[in-house]
């Protein structure tokens, strides 16, 4: 029980809520780098996934890329970049670039797979009838395929978010900052209150972001699909 009390004391201590190493700044760093890498990852993976799903071209390449991406441990993704990025910039090349690049690379596979799998799972009869009604290919994608596939596409974003938030935590080992720093410092200083405070904050951020995307996923499911699911 004493550990719970000291963690609560650490989390509510005003001193931990100020300064460059305070909770607000590190939380903002964590959210900032996560959102940035998700946005870059989505900008790459979403158009590619939609195109592959619609045209069924490059499916094998996408499958292989996704399988490869899943097999890359996040620590390996960061670590493998460090010796090279430090040559570009000794400071940011160690603390920021490797983790950021790894986060983008790890965000791509789930978004790519879900966007093309979502599109290719759309009932071919629907696509055919849309084509018969005279819709252009682009209109078929935007008016038929994307709305139906949207829950699946958001599901990919959700998986990517879990990956990205966890990888940002790992970046603290390389001095990234963000919420993982409390864990790194807590274990180095044998300060259990700080360590567990960090663990609680990281867990809360992961659970909240996953929950919010789950909510979005349900919101963006078209009413027609919701009815069909029943």
């Amino acid at each position: 029980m004493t550990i719970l009390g000291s963690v609560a004391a650490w989390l509510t201590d005003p001193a931990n809520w100020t300064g460059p190493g305070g909770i607000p700044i590190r939380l903002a760093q964590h959210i900032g780098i996560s959102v940035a890498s998700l946005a870059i990852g989505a900008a790459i993976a979403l158009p590619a996934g939609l195109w592959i799903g619609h045209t069924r071209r490059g499916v094998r390449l996408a499958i292989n890329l996704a399988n490869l991406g899943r097999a890359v441990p996040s620590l390996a993704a960061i670590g493998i970049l460090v010796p090279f990025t430090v040559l570009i910039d000794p400071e940011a090349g160690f603390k920021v670039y490797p983790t950021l690049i790894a986060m983008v690379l790890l965000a791509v596979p789930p978004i790519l797979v879900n966007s093309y799998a979502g599109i290719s799972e759309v009932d071919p009869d629907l696509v055919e009838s849309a084509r018969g009604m005279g819709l252009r290919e682009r209109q078929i994608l935007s008016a038929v395929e994307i709305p139906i596939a949207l829950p699946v596409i958001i599901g990919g974003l959700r998986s990517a978010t879990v990956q990205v938030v966890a990888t940002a935590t790992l970046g603290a080992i390389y001095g990234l900052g963000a919420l993982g720093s409390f864990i790194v410092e807590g274990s180095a200083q044998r300060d259990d209150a700080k360590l567990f405070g960090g663990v609680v904050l990281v867990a809360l951020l992961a659970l909240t972001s996953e929950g919010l995307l789950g909510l979005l996923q349900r919101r963006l499911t078209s009413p027609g699909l919701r009815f069909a699911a029943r």
Partner: protein
Amino acid sequence: MIDWGWLLDHVGAILGRTVQHIELTAIALVVGFALSFLMALLSLRRPGVYTIVSGLAGIFFTIPSYAMFAAFVAFTGLSILTAEIPLVLYTFVIFIRNMVVGLQSVPRDVSEAAEGLGFTTRQRLIRVEIPLAIPLVMAGLRLASVSTIGLVTITSILGDSFGGLGFFITERPFFATEVLVGAIGSILLALGADVLFARLQRRLTPWSQVGRARTGDGLPRSTDRPVPA
């Protein structure tokens, strides 16, 4: 760029770390599999248990592994338990869902046929439900092995006695040769496990290939399930 001298001097260490990596992974897979099998059987009898277990498991799944490992240091020190408890929790989550869904996915006409043949509950479990759950269970094994191999690298934060090939990633972050050995080695292990279990899956369930050849388009199914990281 590559320091061949270091590589030659460390062949033994690299093999040793590879074995350690496989050991840490295997323990987590075996213990997680056994625990989730027991829990899956219990869940078949009491669905309420499954609701609670899967809810808790979903929460564990989302928590970053680095935070989990660091948290357990406070309770179990820098011991093998600290490495294995989070690893087992993650494999448990992957297995339990696939097992329960697999065991419950027996088509109604099949279970009615089993009943008509006079099967007892136990016979039905062993001769009908478990065999039909194999494809999903194997898919779970494949996912769990790949994700555990990734997570084992992070146990290198627990000191020199852990980490498997991950040890080489964190020992000297600027020494490209060593980092490459750790990173590429762990990626190859994960890819190897993926291929191995995919083959085993096909071997164990030849019937599912027939169905796939007839109806499948070869596209992998979408998933909204995150992989622990």
